[in-house]
């Protein structure tokens, strides 16, 4: 059985150095006016969950989908990580990070998950994770988790300052810069040595 989170799934924006570099001086300009202090989080609602191997529907009004390849921590208890799982956090591409991205990120099926939860012990140090993204077999992105702004431990601590991640909740470590785009018909495959493979295909929504 492919893993499905029992709790709320949180994503993290701007947790990779490349994302900050891409924004550069814009972070100090309106509407942002300053770089973020606390972790910038968002929620992927349960209607977005797609298990490994399933097709993901893309509405006709969305010509391209942004691939947010990442790894999520899944909680055993507050402050304690049960394990890690691959996630493909799909978005309708959007340039502004000023308002919460609900209508860009919470489309039905827009979060590939799995295939399996790997225990924290087996998975090893999250800062050593390396994730490859292939679209139709072609390598399009390599995410080095050594480039995280806050490592897994620091991210958990910073989030825990203002909210509790309970058993079953999941927190993504971030997606890196240079996220590839995909379209209907494309097969997206995420691979990490210690976590396995997550594969989903984009199909036209009925």
């Amino acid at each position, binding site marked *: 059985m492919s893993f499905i989170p029992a*709790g*709320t799934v949180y994503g993290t924006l701007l947790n990779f150095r490349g994302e900050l570099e891409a924004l550069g001086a814009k972070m100090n300009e309106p509407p942002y006016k300053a770089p973020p202090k*606390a972790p*910038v989080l968002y*929620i992927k609602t349960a209607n977005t*969950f797609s298990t490994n191997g399933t097709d993901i529907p893309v509405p006709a009004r969305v010509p391209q989908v942004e691939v947010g390849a990442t790894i999520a921590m899944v909680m055993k208890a507050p402050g304690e990580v049960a394990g890690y799982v691959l996630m493909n956090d799909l978005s309708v591409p959007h340039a502004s990070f*000023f308002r919460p991205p*609900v209508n860009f990120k919470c489309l039905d099926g827009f979060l590939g998950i799995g295939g399996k939860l790997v225990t924290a012990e087996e998975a090893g140090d999250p800062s050593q994770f390396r994730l490859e993204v292939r679209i139709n077999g072609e390598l399009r992105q390599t995410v080095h988790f050594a480039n995280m702004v806050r490592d897994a431990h620091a991210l958990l601590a910073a989030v825990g300052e*203002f909210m509790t991640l309970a058993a079953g*909740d999941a927190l993504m470590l971030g997606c890196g810069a240079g996220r590839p785009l995909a379209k209907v018909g494309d097969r997206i495959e995420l691979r990490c040595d210690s976590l396995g493979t997550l594969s989903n295909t984009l199909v036209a929504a009925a």
Partner: protein
Amino acid sequence: MKFARVVYEGVVRTARERAGQLLLDDGGLVPFDAVSWLPPLNPMPQPRTILALGLKYADHAKELAFKAPEEPLVFLKGENALTGHRQFTRRPAGVEFMHYECELTVIVGKTARNVKRSDAYDFIGGYTVANDYAIRDYLENWYRPNLRVKNRDGATPLGPWFVEAADVPDPMTLALSTTVNGKVTQSGNTRDMIFDVSFLIEYFSSFMTLRPGDLILTGTPDGVVDCRPGDVVVTAIEDIGTLENRIAVDREIGI
């Protein structure tokens, strides 16, 4: 009909109101203050989607010096944010401005996908009251309102009652009010919402499937003020309920 979820003698029970007391699902009749109140929601098989609206009333948008939005300003919460009637909400030390927001809350009754506005009410299971506290000190302009402002543990009291939709013939003409220590600080009417409940069901279901038990917190009108430690904040909506909460400081809750 309306029901509550409460903990009585360590057991979670559903309850109905009977002659100013709670009739528990095991037949017991107990006073309101003999129980600990939970949000009036049944558990869901998957994580609950909790949608909330910002700048939803024309007057509140004006108060915050924004122009009224052309499409809804929407944010999400996790279930950690919810707490029940007569519970407390933490005001962290050093905070300058923490305010309540009295909000009509829609509880989805049927799976909703591409619902037309004219059919929207068929998909509503019921209503309750939310107090969607915000701590403005923590506002940042990234995915604003950010989760540090709006997704704090227990900072969204909900309840006391789940009021079935059939008992609310028109949710768009309900008086809302908030009192702080008995003094009225906020009053409005759901008729002044910029985007009404049927619009919201159509809008959300146009891009995401809503399931029974999902929530939509519909935003707050004019009149938000800072709440101090020890304040008793009562958010009330005509025909839906009167939700009480107290502001607690860190030392009371062992932080």
